[in-house]
Every structure is written in C-alpha cells, then in structure tokens.
C-alpha cells in the first residue's frame, strides 16, 4: 500500500507534465526505493528490533497528521498524544468489553476525530502560543482524568487487551503488526496526499500563507482548520488503536506529555507541511531516541537518565533546527536541489 508514497506534496501539485512522464522523476524513484525498504525492513530486522520499527511507523502516522496541522493550518498542538491516547483507550475499551477487536480499531480514529471536532470549536479560536498551551492543558486534564476514573482502569490502565482479529486472521506476531502499521501509514499518506493535491488542500496551503487572501478566494478558513485538526486527531487515534492491540495494555503512562513533544520535534526536524518531512522526522528522531535509550540505560546511569536525556536532546535539536534549518530537513534539502537545477522550470 505504501507504493502510493510517490511524490512529495509540493512537486505533485503541478500534475506531472508531459516532460516528466517520459522518465521517472528522481522523487518517484526515491519513493519507490523507500517503499521497498519499508516493506523489507520487518523481514530483515532481528526479531527483538521489530518493536522499534512498529513504534516508528505509529509515530509517523501521528506526525503526518500533525505536520499537516502545523504546516497548513499554522496551529501547533502540544497535546497531540491526547488523541493517540483517546484512540488507544477506545480500542482497548471496545476489545475488553467483548466487542469485536476490528470494531475497536475502526472506532479509535473516529472517536479521536470526534473529540478533536468538539474541543476544536473553542480551541481553534485561539492563536499561536495560546493554542499550543490549551492543547497541552487538555492532555494534562485527560491524563489526570484517566488516572482517576474507574472504568479507564486508573493509573494501572486497561490490561489484557486481546490481539487484533480481522476476518478470522489474528495479528499475533510482531511482524504482522509491522505490516499492519505500515499499511495504516500507507493509507494515511495516501489520504494526506490526495487532500493536499486537490481543492481542499490548495485552500489549506493558501490559508497557511494568508488567511485574509484565502478567505477572499472563498476558503472557509475556520472550517478548514477544524477539518485538519480533526483529521490529524483521527490519524493519531488510528496509531493509538494499533498501539493498544500491539502492546496489549494502555495506561496513562503510555501517553506522557513527552510523547506530544516528541511528535512536535519530529514535525519540526522533518519540516512542517510535507509528507516526506514527516516520515524523515519520525525516522530520525526514533533512531536518535533508540540511541539515547541505549546510552541512558547503561550500567551506572541513574534511572531518570533516559527521560532527562530525551528532554535535553529535544531542546537542543529544536534550537539547532530552528537556527540553521528553519524550514526543516526535507524542505531545506528540496530547496537546495531546486537551486542546483534552477535552469530547468521549477515544479515547486
């Protein structure tokens, strides 16, 4: 499914002209290569490492949505993990109450998107920092609520979430979750690409530059922002749903505020508003976290080392990226490539 990850949203905006049909663009070849690697990784990785890959894919699902929200609607959500959490708990509650697990997976993004639609009405009236803090506040409230309520299992959370079953097939192996997450990521990328390269996507990209000019062209700015907020929450909910079935339990501790920060750092490092940026950011940060975790859990390190290290590195990374690559890895690389090939007509 991830073969559809063909083009960056920017270059595909101008539907390939005749000149580009003759020989595949570098972006197409690159995307095909990435897709092949993504499909092979679960087979090639040692079994103990597959979990890192699954978590990377789940993060990428969230980050693609958040990147759209930050890049197009210009809204920073510091509480995006709330929606991952809502998705996770939705799936876990559905499954532990004897309902079919596939229904839980289906409901996870729907409930998350619906919650976002609800809180989005007041929240999206806020701007800049205010919205960021409001989303953070929502996550703190949610964490506190879920940690106290009985039906969510309190601080212990919900244990014993059954494995996902779809049409008689049970997702039991690590590797099956890798492909499930990969399929979900492919779907999310496809949906995002379809939106970005069409009428609503143009409206979104327009309002990212100027809400006034976009509104004058007939773009219903508030409705579109709301739609992207819900969509990004839906993606996060989907990732949360898969997470619940994969790990087998959900607890408030699984969705800390740090996770929300991690998503934001992934978006900023990769470059907001691009699909490739989201994928690159999620990959880079996951690998880095893995490395930090290895260092932080070495003998002689204090128990808090991994957390402290993550916070420190997030802060450092944000400062470095904002200073030197303010647009993020992928847009900076694309701009560099465009400058090199400036003699040819630009496609974005």
């Amino acid at each position, binding site marked *: 499914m991830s073969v559809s990850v063909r083009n960056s949203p*920017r270059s595909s*905006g*101008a*539907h390939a*002209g005749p000149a580009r049909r003759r020989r595949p663009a570098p972006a197409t070849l690159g995307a095909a290569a990435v897709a092949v690697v993504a499909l092979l990784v679960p087979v090639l990785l040692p079994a103990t490492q597959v979990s890192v890959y699954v978590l990377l894919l789940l993060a990428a699902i969230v980050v693609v949505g958040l990147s759209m929200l930050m890049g197009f609607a210009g809204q920073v959500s510091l509480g995006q993990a709330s929606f991952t959490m809502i998705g996770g708990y939705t799936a876990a509650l559905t499954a532990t109450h004897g309902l079919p697990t596939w229904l839980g997976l289906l409901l996870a993004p729907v409930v998350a998107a619906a919650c976002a639609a609800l809180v989005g009405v007041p929240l999206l009236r806020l701007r800049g920092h205010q919205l960021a803090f409001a989303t953070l506040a929502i996550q703190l409230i949610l964490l506190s609520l879920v940690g106290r309520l009985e039906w969510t299992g309190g601080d212990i959370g919900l244990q014993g979430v059954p494995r996902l079953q779809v049409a008689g097939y049970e997702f039991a192996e690590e590797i099956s979750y890798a492909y499930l997450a990969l399929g979900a990521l492919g779907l999310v990328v496809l*949906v995002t690409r*379809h*939106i970005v390269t*069409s*009428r*609503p*996507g*143009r*409206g979104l*990209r*327009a309002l*990212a*530059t*100027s809400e*006034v*000019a*976009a*509104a*004058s*062209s*007939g*773009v*219903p*700015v508030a409705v579109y922002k709301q*739609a992207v907020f819900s*969509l990004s929450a839906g993606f996060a909910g989907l990732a949360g749903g898969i997470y619940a079935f994969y790990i087998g339990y959900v607890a408030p501790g699984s969705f800390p505020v740090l996770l929300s920060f991690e998503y934001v750092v992934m978006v900023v490092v990769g470059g907001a*508003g691009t699909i490739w940026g989201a994928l690159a950011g999620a990959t880079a940060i996951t690998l880095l976290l893995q490395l930090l975790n290895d260092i932080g859990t070495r003998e002689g390190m204090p128990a808090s080392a991994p957390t402290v290290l993550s916070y420190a590195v997030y802060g450092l990374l944000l400062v470095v990226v904002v200073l030197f690559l303010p647009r993020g890895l992928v847009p900076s690389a694309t701009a560099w490539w465009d400058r090199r090939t400036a003699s040819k*007509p*630009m*496609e*974005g």
Partner: protein
Amino acid sequence: MTTLLEVGSVGRAFGGVYAVRDVAMAVAEGETRAVIGPNGAGKSTLFNLISGHLAPDHGTLRYGTRRIDRLPPHARARLGIAIVFQGARLFHGMTALENVMVGAHARTRHGFLSATLRLPAHRREEAEIRADALAALDRVGLRDWAHRSADVLPLGQQRSLQVARALCARPRLLLLDEPASGLRAGEREALAQLVEGLRAEGLTMMLVEHDVAFVARLADRVSVLDLGRLIAEGTPEQIRDDPAVIAAYLGEEAA
C-alpha cells in the same frame, strides 16, 4: 441600470476615530467605479467593509437583493465578490497555476471526502478548475509561468497573478485595490488594457487608484473620499471640475 452593490451609509471607527463615516453609494451592474482620495481617506477600509474583512459599526451593504454586511469574507466570495489586494498577497510554496486555482474555490464545492476518495466528479471538477486557471493565466500573460513557484515572480507579475486568481473565481464584482501602484509604465499599460477588456465584457469593478490618468481612462464614475466621508461623486469630467475635490485632493496633486 440595476444596482449591484448598494453601500448604505456605513461607518467604521478605529479607536474612536472614523475611518469611514456615513458613506453611501450605489454601483450599477456593469459599471467601473473608481474610488479616489488622499491617503487616509478611508478607501481601503471601504474595500475591507465590502469584502468582509471588516464589519461595519453601522450601516448596511446590499449586494443584488441580499444583505451581506454580516456575511464572512468567504461567503461573500461565494456570492461573486473578488478582490485584488494592494500588496502581493500570493500563496507561498505553490506554483503560479496553483495560486490561480485557489481562486476557483469560490465557485466549486468538492471537499475533503471527495478529494480523499478521488471520486470521478471530483476529478472532473479538478480538470475544469485547471483549465480555467490556465485560461486566466493566459489572459494576464503568465501562461509560461504556470508551473513555476509563485514566490519567484517579479512584482508586476505578482499583481497580474492576483488578477488571474480573482478572474478564476468568475466574479460578478471585482475590487481592485491600487492595482497600478509600483508597476512600470509597460506593466501599467498592460493592466489598463486588461481592465478595459473586462469592462467591455460587462464586469462590474471597483477600483482604488491614485493615478488620475488611469482613473480618467478606465472609470465610468468616480467617488471621492476625504477623511472618511464621501465628498463628491460623478463622471471623471465632473470630478475634475468639482471645487471640493480640487481642494481636498487634486489641489494637492497640482501644487
């Protein structure tokens, strides 16, 4: 002639100071109306009241048979009001063609769901928008720039691109806020010819402009604002001889 836009003594103050005060005017279908006045006369405020980016403190706006003074800007765009802003309000990170395609938003409807599912009707609409946008680019002489990033266009072309974006909306009322400012002589002439062409096609236009020759050539009627008030209205010839106007505006120019 039927009235397309009726401004019913609107007022708008900022911090107690009126930027537009009791301005009333009626723009007929097919008319080209110039709005002139010294700096700070309230021209841009008036345009913002018409396009919906500002709400009037009092007064009404009637467009055809509808009251529009409480409608948000995007709803007014959907009714056929398009605006070319004074500055270059282009959308970054998009090609010239995509910028113009945004203009079609006002009269097309496919949303997130049909875009996601790529329904046949959606594909058809996309193809139509694309064809219309290319035609609009052609009209302003920017066809060759279609697939280039709008960010790299020179100022003159940026203005033309905004005009193309407005035309792609197929407006009934086109607002042009100082379209000729900052343009070189050749660009100015091309713009004047474009406006003349649109006028010949019967498009209703309102035009804020400082260039008196530009106004005299293109406008059917001229409304003169000074300190937020409408001080004169008439044909370009009548306005030229109006003592109040000479005192407030042309006098400064002549001095």
